[in-house]
């Protein structure tokens, strides 16, 4: 494939709008960056609405309203209404904390299409310990009931790590009880706070394997009742996954302060230049932003990807993983068995095997805003 000209540039499908980094919870696995954006720097209502209009014109179909906790934005219903007005499908990705009946009613009336509710565990004590928030579990049950009452479809999302890996199946059962049509079981991706807490989060290899097998079994068992989307770690695979469906091919991510990223972890790659919605139109960013152009298509590839038949199938895997494991974001993802660095992956998979089984509460570095940033306390 030659350099991409705007003419054959595919239009993006999804926009992840990180409306804020404020959040009452403190999940140690949180993929948000350690350097959280302060409230003072957040895009205002009018700017987000302009971005959503530009997104629809660009061909975006789905908008994922996320964060941080999107419910901390008082203008959330106005943003949803604007998305509906310009024809975008809206998905609210939430911890559920802050979802009261009046808020749910306003969001439903504004035209919200779908709610994705995250849970930390199937047991209240453990769930609240992981969230770093007393009573979070009970609030999530209430939130799920409110979503049902409003007649909106519900997806439950659970992130798997050492403290809850033994209850992966129980979390699927909880999702069914909560009335979800879909459940996402995602093994922790080690970015941001998740990377900071990696040693406390990494399950033993046996536990991870058991959980993966159980989820695969439940997928078949519950077919037609609940759809299980399983994001398993790819350390044991032969080839990598097409991360993000290929860099800068399908989606964009806008941070609370307006920087536009090809994926939520792209800022971990040093030297990339990101453009902001404050200075550029979304279509210009999609076509020309240096960060998007850096690994778009196949021209940037090294061997073995460059001459590989799979290069437009998996697009060389994950750039962030290549950086983390091979020290070079333009390298073949070391998960690939053809990568000269593949041994690193095998070594990590081995190291996972020696993690102790969790006994009692684990100590975490909870995700928190810096106290004096003016970002305000987590609860406002």
């Amino acid at each position, binding site marked *: 494939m030659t350099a991409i000209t705007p003419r054959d540039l595919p*239009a993006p*499908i999804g926009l992840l709008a990180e409306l804020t980094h404020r959040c009452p919870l403190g999940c140690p696995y949180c993929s948000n960056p350690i350097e959280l954006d302060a409230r003072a720097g957040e895009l205002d209502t009018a700017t987000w609405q302009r971005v959503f209009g530009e997104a629809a*014109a*660009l*061909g975006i*179909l*789905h908008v994922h309203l996320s964060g941080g906790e999107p419910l901390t934005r008082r203008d959330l219903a106005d943003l949803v209404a604007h998305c509906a007005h310009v*024809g975008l*499908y809206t*998905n609210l990705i939430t911890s559920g904390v802050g979802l009261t009946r009046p808020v749910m009613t306003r969001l439903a009336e504004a035209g919200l*299409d*779908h709610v*994705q509710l995250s849970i930390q565990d199937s047991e209240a004590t453990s769930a609240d310990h992981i969230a770093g928030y007393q009573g979070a579990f009970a609030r999530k049950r209430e939130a799920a009931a409110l979503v049902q009452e409003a*007649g*909106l*479809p519900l*997806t439950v999302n659970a992130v798997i790590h050492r403290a809850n890996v033994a209850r992966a199946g129980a979390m699927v059962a909880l999702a069914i009880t909560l009335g979800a*049509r*879909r459940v996402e079981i995602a093994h922790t991706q080690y970015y941001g706070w998740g990377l900071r807490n990696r040693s406390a989060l990494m399950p033993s290899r046996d536990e991870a394997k058991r959980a993966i097998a159980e989820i695969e079994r439940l997928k078949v068992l519950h*077919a*037609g009742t*609940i*759809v299980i*989307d399983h994001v398993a770690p790819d350390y044991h695979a032969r080839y990598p996954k097409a991360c993000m469906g290929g860099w800068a091919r399908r989606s964009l991510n806008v941070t609370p302060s307006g920087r536009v990223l090809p994926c939520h972890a792209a800022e971990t790659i040093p030297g990339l230049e990101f453009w902001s919605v404050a200075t550029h139109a979304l279509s210009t960013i999609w076509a020309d932003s240096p960060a998007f152009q850096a690994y778009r298509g196949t021209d940037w590839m090294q061997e073995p990807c460059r001459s590989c038949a799979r290069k437009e199938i998996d697009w060389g895997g994950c750039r962030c993983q290549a950086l983390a494991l091979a020290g070079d974001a333009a390298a073949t993802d070391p998960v690939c068995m053809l990568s000269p660095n593949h041994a690193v992956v095998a070594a990590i998979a081995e190291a996972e095997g020696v993690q102790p089984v969790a006994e009692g509460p684990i100590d975490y570095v909870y995700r928190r805003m810096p106290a004096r940033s003016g970002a305000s306390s987590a609860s406002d």
Partner: protein
Amino acid sequence: MISLALDSKPRLPRGVRLKHDAVRNEWTLLAPERVLKADLVAVEILKRCTGDATITAIVDDLASAFKADRTRIESDVQTFLADLAAKRMIDL
């Protein structure tokens, strides 16, 4: 493949909607985390999934509208809707 009851009345649930995508000039079925391209046959079936018409009525209607073989249409509708039901994208 499961076979759907002919007297059930399929309906798109909230959160699943048919949209004409002006940028790509095609019909799409939007659902949570899913975008399905809808071809002309799919669009005609989906437009009739209002919750008022039974599968039998939908098949009759399509067969007369398109002057097509009823048996084939019934099997197309069955296959299409059973697949959507497995994805929880249609209520029956």
